[in-house]
């Protein structure tokens, strides 16, 4: 549980994420149909399937895995998730050197959030994936500062991201396509925040089984 996270972890994470996103494809489609264009489940499923194929060749380190995820999502997703997650994984890769200790995990999450904010220009409370990544970063920082292992740090981030995703339900969307719905966007969980929670949960699971 206290082991640093290496390329094998990153590969295991992304393969796990592909399986979970495929499993939850319809749920994400339904969430996005309610307040968006309905393509999020399909796009994430397609994107991560393409990523896993690209990663069949393996990768030398964590940063290399994250870079393959970034470029493949940019090219294959099609919807907003492509440039958003693409930029997130690209910045996360840049924040990574070698294996990850708990502070390294925090740096990866901070890089991802920074990329999403730079690309989407959203802030918290706008009913977007930022509402899952922001509490995830805060929880990971607190866990790492308290001496948690990399796996425990990721688990703290995943729990906070899930809570953050659920907290988007009463929000009114003010960014993205959902903002066109105004008050009618209230009462639905944001699909991007939901996929973020799945991504961080699978990252934690992969770390716990190292």
């Amino acid at each position, binding site marked *: 549980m206290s082991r640093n996270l290496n390329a094998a972890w990153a590969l295991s994470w992304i393969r796990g994420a592909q399986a979970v996103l495929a499993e939850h494809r319809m749920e994400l489609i339904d969430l996005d149909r309610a307040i968006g264009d309905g393509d999020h489940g399909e*796009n994430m499923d397609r994107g991560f399937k393409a990523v896993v194929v690209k990663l069949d060749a393996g990768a030398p380190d964590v940063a290399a895995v994250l870079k393959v995820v970034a470029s493949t999502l940019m090219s294959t*997703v099609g*919807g907003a998730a*492509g*440039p*958003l997650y*693409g930029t997130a994984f690209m910045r996360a890769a840049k924040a990574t050197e070698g294996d990850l200790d708990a502070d390294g995990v925090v740096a990866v999450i901070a890089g991802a959030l920074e990329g999403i904010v730079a690309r*989407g220009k959203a802030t918290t409370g706008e009913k977007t994936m930022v509402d899952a990544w922001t509490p995830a970063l805060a929880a990971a920082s607190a866990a790492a500062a308290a001496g948690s292992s990399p796996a425990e740090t990721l688990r703290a981030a995943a729990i906070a991201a899930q809570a953050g995703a659920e907290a988007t339900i009463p929000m009114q969307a003010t960014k993205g*396509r959902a903002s066109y719905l105004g008050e009618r966007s209230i009462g639905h969980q944001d699909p991007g925040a939901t996929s973020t929670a799945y991504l961080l949960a699978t990252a934690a699971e992969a770390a716990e089984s190292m």
Partner: protein
Amino acid sequence: MSHRKAHGAVVALVIVSHSANLAAGVVELAAQMAKDVQMRAAGGTEDGRIGTSFDLVNDAVSELRTAGHDVAILSDLGSATMTVESVLDFLDADEAVHVRFVDGPLVEGAVAAAVTAQVGGDLAEVVAAGRARDLFT
């Protein structure tokens, strides 16, 4: 205007839309008053779905840059703009000065940008025209 004299190439446009039909239609409309302006439609995903493609936009920009054009890019909804901005982020610094995003309305902006390019406007002038700010003030 100085740009055209220096390089002999009119500023070119890339039209990015979630819909391939919409992008092609905007090119068709803008070309009516700009017969010498090179325009590329980069609409939809590579497999023909609604959405935008990093690779389609990047390929259109590369092709026009290789032909010697400065390039102005217009887009429709938010994630198309994010795709364009991602493409711009990946350009080298010396390339990036020749490629600009036009933050304007797609149809009006494309027509205004195309006409400005047709009469010899340089990249900055085409981008300013494509913002079509006077339509909304």
